[in-house]
C-alpha cells in the first residue's frame, strides 16, 4: 500500500510488505470477459429470438413486453419462451457462474424474463406447463426471508412454478399448502437454531399423511447434518443450489438419492 498520506500520529507503515499480510484473490482472479463476449457465443442465431434473449440479458424490463408482442407476429408463444427468453436467461446464468454478473443482474434479468413470459402466455390462453411446483417458506418465528426470495426467483428462472408462502409460517399452514398444491418439493428457510425445529415437525406430518416428497432445509442456522437427520430431509447450502437439486427430483430422485448424491449435484454451484 504505497503513497498513503497517513493520519497524524498513526503508526508508520513505511517499508512494510503487505504481501505478507493479505492477498487480494478477488483482484487477481478478476474475469476479463464481458457480457457481450460470452453472449456472442451463446445467443440464438434467429433474429427474433435473439432480440428477446438480449432484452433478458441486458435487463430491459421496460422494453420486453413490446419485444415479445412484436415477436408473436412471427413466432409461436412457446418458441419465444424457450428459444428466446429462457435462452437469454441461460446466458445470464453463465455470466453469474463466471463472476461477470452478480445478484442484481440475476434478479433484474429474471424479472425481465417473467414479464416476457406473461405476455407470451396470454397468447397461449393460460400458464405454460412448467417443470413442476415447489412450495417455499420461512420457518415460524423467523422474519428473515431474503435467502428464500432469491432462491424463489432462481427457481422460477429455471422453469419451475413457485408457491411462496412467505415468512413466519406455521407448521400446519405449510402442511396444508403441500396437501393443496401437490408439489414435488417443499423448502424451509431458517436463520435461528430454534426456529428450524419446525422442519422435522413439518416432514413428520407430511409422512403421517403419506406424502413422501423431499423437504429441503436452508438458511444461516441450518447445516447439512441437521437437514438430513430426518425422513424426507435434504439440504441446500445456498440459493443457486436449489434449481439443480430440483432438476434431479423432477428427474426421479427421491430424498434418499438426493442425500446420497448431494455432493455431485451441487458441485461447482
Amino acid at each position, binding site marked *: 500500500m504505497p503513497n498513503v498520506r497517513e*493520519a497524524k500520529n498513526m503508526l508508520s507503515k513505511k517499508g512494510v510488505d503487505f504481501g505478507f499480510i493479505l492477498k487480494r484473490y478477488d483482484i487477481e482472479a478478476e474475469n476479463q470477459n464481458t457480457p457481450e463476449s460470452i453472449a456472442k457465443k451463446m445467443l440464438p442465431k434467429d433474429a427474433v429470438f435473439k432480440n428477446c434473449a438480449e432484452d433478458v440479458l441486458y435487463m430491459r424490463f421496460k422494453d420486453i413486453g413490446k419485444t415479445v408482442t412484436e415477436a408473436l407476429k412471427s413466432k409461436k408463444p412457446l418458441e419465444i419462451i424457450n428459444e428466446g427468453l429462457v435462452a437469454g436467461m441461460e446466458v445470464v446464468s453463465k455470466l453469474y457462474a463466471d463472476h461477470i454478473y452478480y445478484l442484481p*443482474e440475476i434478479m433484474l434479468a429474471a424479472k425481465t424474463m417473467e414479464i416476457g413470459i406473461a405476455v407470451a402466455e396470454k397468447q397461449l390462453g393460460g400458464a405454460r406447463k412448467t417443470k413442476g411446483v415447489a412450495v417455499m417458506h420461512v420457518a415460524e418465528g423467523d422474519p*428473515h426471508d431474503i435467502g428464500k426470495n432469491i432462491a424463489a426467483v432462481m427457481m422460477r428462472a429455471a422453469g419451475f412454478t413457485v408457491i411462496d408462502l412467505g415468512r413466519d409460517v406455521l407448521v400446519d399452514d405449510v402442511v396444508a399448502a403441500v396437501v393443496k398444491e401437490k408439489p414435488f418439493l417443499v423448502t424451509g428457510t431458517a436463520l435461528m437454531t430454534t426456529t428450524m425445529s419446525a422442519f422435522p415437525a413439518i416432514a413428520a406430518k407430511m409422512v403421517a399423511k403419506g406424502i413422501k416428497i423431499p423437504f429441503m432445509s436452508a438458511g444461516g442456522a441450518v447445516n447439512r447434518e441437521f437437514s438430513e437427520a430426518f425422513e424426507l430431509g435434504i439440504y441446500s447450502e445456498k440459493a443457486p443450489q436449489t434449481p439443480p437439486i430440483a432438476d434431479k427430483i423432477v428427474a426421479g430422485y427421491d430424498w434418499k438419492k438426493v442425500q446420497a448424491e448431494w455432493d455431485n449435484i451441487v458441485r461447482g454451484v
Partner: protein
Amino acid sequence: MAITRYTKMAYDKADDIVFGTAKHPVSYGFGIKVGAGRVIPELNYAPRPGKEKDIALITKEYVDYISQDAVNRAVTLGFPDLQLETEWISQMGTNSKMAESIVSGQTALLEKMHDKYGINLAIRHTIPDQREADQGLRPKMDKERSYPERLIISAEIAAENGAHVLSCETMGGKELLDYGVQVGDITACLFGIGYLGSLDMSWVWPQFVDICKKNKVVPGGDTNCSGANTSMFMAGGYLDNDVQRTFSAVTRCFAAARTLVAWEAGATGPDKDCGYEGPICKTIAGKPNAQEGKNCQCAHADLQGNLMAQICDVWSNESVEYHSEFGGSSVQCWLGSLGYEVSLMNTAIAFGKEKTLRDLYMFSDRARGPEGYVLAYDNAYKIGEAIVAEGKDLYRRAKAAGLTGAKIIRDGNKKKEIMLTAKQKDVLDNIIKTLEKLPDEESKFVDYCLKQYKDVPAFNPKNYDL
C-alpha cells in the same frame, strides 16, 4: 424521552479514540465497567435445537449449561470480567413465562458466581423484533400476532426480571434494504436504512429508554444487523459473487446515521456488537462500543476481523450454538478465544501501547476490502464528521455518510491504498453519481421514494407515519 440529535463530534481528532476507553463510560451488573479503561469480553450463544420445547428444558440450557459453563471457564482462565448476552429466541418473544424464567435464572446464577469468586459479571438481553412490515410495525396494526405490542412487552420483561443491559436489533426499513440489495438500488437502501430505519428507531428507542429508566437497567443500543449486515454477508469474501463490496460498504455508512438514533434517544451504550457501523457511531458520541470480528468466526466470516477491534470497548463472539468441542463446550472454547484477545488488548493498555495495537489491528485489514477501509478509525472519523454536519436532518446525514464513504473509497483507490475490481469500481462510480443527483430537501426525497418504491413488497408508508 426527548431525542437530541448529534451535531458535533465527541472527540477532537481520530487519534484520541482507542479501545477500552470511551468518553462516557457505563457501570452496571455485578462490577462491570465499560469504556472505563479496559475492554470487556461479551459471550453470546444459542441453545441447541429442540430445547425450546418446554420452559424447564430451555431454562436449564441457558442457566445450568451455557451460563454456568461460561463463568466456570472465565474463572478457570483468570478473566476478571465477563458479560453474557442472551439474544432471545423467537419463542421468548411470544411466551412471557419462558422469557421470565430464563432472564431471572441467568441473573441469579451470575449473582451467585460473583459472590463466590468476585468475578465481575453482567448480562445483556437482546430482545427480538419480530414485527413484520406487511402486517404493520406499530401497535394495533398487526391483528394476527400483535408483534409491535410484543416488542414492548419483551423489553418490560427483560428489564423487570434482571437484565443489566437492554438491546434490540430493530427491523425498520428492512423491506426497502432487502429490495435494494437484491436489485442493486442504492437509493432504496438509503431510504430503507438511513431514513425509514431512523424514523422507526425514533419511535422505538424512547420507549425502551423509559422502560430501562423505570427499572434501573442500562439501555445499550441497536445495530443494523437486519440491513447493512445482510448487505455485508451477501457481499461476502473473495469467492462470493452476489453483492459488490463497494455497495455493502456504502450501506454500512448509511447504517451509522441510523444506529446512532438509539443513543440520541438516551441509550448509553454499549451498543450491539454486530453493528459494524459502531466505530463511526463511537467517533460521534463517545459512548461505549461493542464489536465483533476475529473471535466471532463461529458465526460470521468478514473481511475486517482484526480491524473491528481497533476502538471497541466490549469484544464479542457474535453467537455460537451450544455443543461439545474437544476443549469443552462451545461457549467455553469461544470464551477462551475472546478472553485471551481481550487480555491482549488490556495488556496493551497496561503497558501504554494501546495506540500501537490499535493501529496494528487496523492496518491488518485496512486494504482487505472496502468495508473495512471505511471503518478504519481515521476514515470512520471523517464519516462521523459528515453525519454531524447534517445532524438534525435524518435524510441528509445518511446521504452524507454514504457519499463521504463512497468518496473515501474512490480516493483510496486512486492512491492505490485500496484495490478494487473493475466491477466494484463501476458500482462505486454509479453510487456516487446516484447519490449526488438526489435532492437536498428531505420532503422531495420522500416524495420521490414513495412513488418510486410504492410496489416494493411489504412496504407500507403508514408503518412510518408517512
